[in-house]
């Protein structure tokens, strides 16, 4: 039985504390992915909207799928919403397991799946006042598809 930790929050993610929590589960190791807001093209602020009634359920479902697929001691999935600046953390996925392959693969699965399945939408606000919704990319869908049976 894996320890699942799923959070949708406005606040910053304390990566050190989150990884320490997974380390304490007594697995052989853990893998993590931290997503950081890019500041390309004069982007001043990234607005992250989500479907509040649905986000937590979808993320928990993704975490449960990882826990079913690999033998894991724990899974942590945290996604932020609200207004984020370049350099800020936006998402953390992490998996603890007895063996490295399970931890590494589960972590990659979690972030690929999250990108195409969790109901978040990004809008870029630029320094000159322009703003635009980020469009989904077919490469992201392909990244998720590689995990399908």
């Amino acid at each position: 039985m894996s320890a699942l930790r799923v959070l949708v929050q406005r606040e910053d993610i304390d990566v050190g504390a989150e990884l320490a929590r997974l380390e304490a589960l007594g697995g052989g190791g853990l893998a993590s992915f931290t997503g950081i807001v890019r500041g390309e093209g004069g982007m001043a602020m990234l607005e992250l909207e989500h479907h509040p009634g649905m986000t937590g359920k979808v993320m928990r479902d993704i975490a449960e799928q990882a826990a079913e697929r690999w033998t894991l001691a724990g899974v942590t999935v945290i996604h932020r919403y609200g207004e984020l600046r370049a350099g800020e953390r936006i998402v953390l996925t992490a998996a603890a397991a007895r063996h490295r392959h399970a931890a590494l693969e589960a972590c990659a699965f979690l972030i690929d799946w999250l990108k195409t399945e969790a109901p978040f939408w990004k809008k870029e606000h630029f320094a000159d006042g322009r703003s635009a919704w980020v469009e989904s990319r077919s490469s992201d869908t392909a990244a998720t598809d590689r995990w399908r049976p």
Partner: protein
Amino acid sequence: MAIDLLYFAGIREAIGLSGERVDPPASVARIVDLVDWLVERGNGYVAAFADRTRLRAAIDDRFVDLTASLAGAREIALFPPVTGGAA
């Protein structure tokens, strides 16, 4: 039967509402029918649903195809493809 609609991202902005309660006629059986019915209102609805290839939907917090039936639905969310995560 009254249904709660939720709009997100560009669709919310085009319509100018984050949600509304609607009472479509019985002929509106599927999500696509609902969208056609909403588009008849004109204005922002036309712009919001101009590109159906970029329209996604959820019924009561579950992703569904646009051909899904509205039978028993309490809440329908309409939104563009999701863009969460990073890098």
